[in-house]
């Protein structure tokens, strides 16, 4: 069976500096896949390449069997690709409600707006209390919920979450991850990008470890949890020199 998303031999970067070299990953239908790695490993660049914000220098991106390398970012939303970006990137001067409506801007999502809104507000009851508040004035955790909710509003087949736990209090991380797990149960494929290995591996089916712009390791969540390589990728210590 062809995977929902596959990246093969992607090279990408900014200006003259290469960030990703020879990156290949896959996400299957209904799968929760996490992409782990230290700061600067290329995780965010990967999500931007998939969302169409960064154009790869070479390599193949396929989504639902079609090559999408030439499809501009704004059209990929209609294909079913959604990204809750690093740093949340909510529209600060707009209300929570307006942010969510923008999530369903694409025509296919607009038709299903009312139902999607109900689902998102059920997933994050806190957003319902804040509907009329300007997004820029909310706490980091609430903005994170809004960014995820906004992405879900677009009725995605693949939901990418870039560092959803970054800078959040442990309690809020639990809330956010409970929502991620529930979204996964609804059948949406998830690509979860995290530095918070514990939280990510708890919900993921499988994962990749990204180091220096390429895949250093991959395996099931259970395998990665016990892997020395994962620890070394994060702590910067060589697996061999560990006691």
């Amino acid at each position, binding site marked *: 069976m062809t995977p929902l998303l596959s990246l093969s031999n992607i090279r990408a970067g900014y200006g003259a500096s290469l960030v990703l070299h020879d990156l290949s990953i896959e996400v299957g239908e209904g799968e929760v896949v996490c992409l782990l790695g230290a700061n600067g490993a290329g995780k965010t660049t990967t999500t931007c390449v998939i*969302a*169409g*914000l960064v154009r790869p220098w070479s390599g193949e991106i396929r989504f639902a069997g079609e090559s999408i390398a030439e499809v*501009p*970012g*704004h*059209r990929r*939303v*209609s294909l079913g690709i*959604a*990204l809750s*970006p690093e740093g949340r*990137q*909510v*529209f*600060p*001067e*707009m209300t929570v409600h*307006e942010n969510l*409506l*923008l*999530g369903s*801007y*694409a025509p296919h*999502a*607009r038709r299903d707006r009312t139902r999607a809104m109900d689902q998102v507000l059920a997933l994050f009851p806190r957003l319902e209390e804040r509907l009329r508040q300007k997004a820029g004035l909310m706490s980091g955790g609430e903005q994170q919920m809004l960014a995820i909710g*906004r*992405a879900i509003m*677009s009725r995605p087949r693949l939901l990418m979450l870039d560092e959803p736990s970054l800078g959040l209090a442990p309690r809020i991380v639990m809330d956010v991850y409970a929502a991620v797990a529930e979204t996964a149960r609804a059948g949406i494929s998830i690509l979860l990008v995290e530095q918070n290995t514990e939280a990510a591996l708890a919900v993921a089916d499988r994962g990749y470890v990204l180091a220096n712009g390429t895949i250093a390791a991959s395996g099931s969540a259970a395998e990665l949890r016990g892997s020395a390589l994962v620890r070394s990728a994060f702590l910067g210590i060589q697996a061999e020199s560990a006691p």
Partner: protein
Amino acid sequence: MTNLLQLLIDALLMGGLYALMSVGLSLGFGVVRIINFAHGEFVMLGAYGAYWALTLLHVDPLLALPFLIVLGYLGGWLLFRGVVAWVLKAPALNQILLTFGIALVLQHIAVVLWTGDVRSAMPEYALSTTIIGDVFVVHGRLIAFLVAGTLIAALTTWLRYSETGRAVRAVAQNHDAAILMGINPGRIYALAFAMSTALGIASGAIVSFLINITPFMGFSILLKAVAIVILGGLGSIAGTVISAFILAIAETMVAYYVPEGAGWTEGVAFAVIVGILLVRPRGIIGSALAT
């Protein structure tokens, strides 16, 4: 006391027109992030449009207004797609030079079409007045104010409540996040620039009620509009409207209370703007299309 009331009414009516002249510039800057130095020339072309409507077609400028707005929109759209879109990622200096160049070209097209002679497109009723109590209201000014108010209200309502208006604000606030919503920023840029042009043309058509028309009228209008937009906080529609009224009040007061004040209006108005910016460097409302 009566004098003060008269002055405030005059300032209010003038402020509406200033707001309309500047709001287009503010929209263009807020979304496309280019200060359009040709905006004054759009106003000038709108004024000549009204002049042609009145003299060639014998159509009232107010009736010609919707038609001029549509023409302005189409012209702005073509100008954006054909020329301005190419410098979006260029350094700011290149963008300024480009729009300045467009301004010069438009000025000289106007000289060719209408010569440098001073023209007027004032319909009869624009010069008549109504006296309410002790206050004189010149009809031309009142109409200009009402048209400006209607257009600005329509613009803000559209920005706030329509699907596309929301997309325009999204692009202004966060370009990349807007793409993630499925919004095509290139299309929104063209749309915002075209609307900005249409608003410039519209304010020109009603300026023709109040002042004479020359091919070179655009520059002083641009200067005022830029000052108003900066004072209001770059890209904020609400800030632009507020600062348009501040400028109108300052000008009117100086013209009346300062001896030989009429000649000083612009200088003192700009002093007020500099003064406010010293206290609030980001303008009255310093945020992207907060509306």
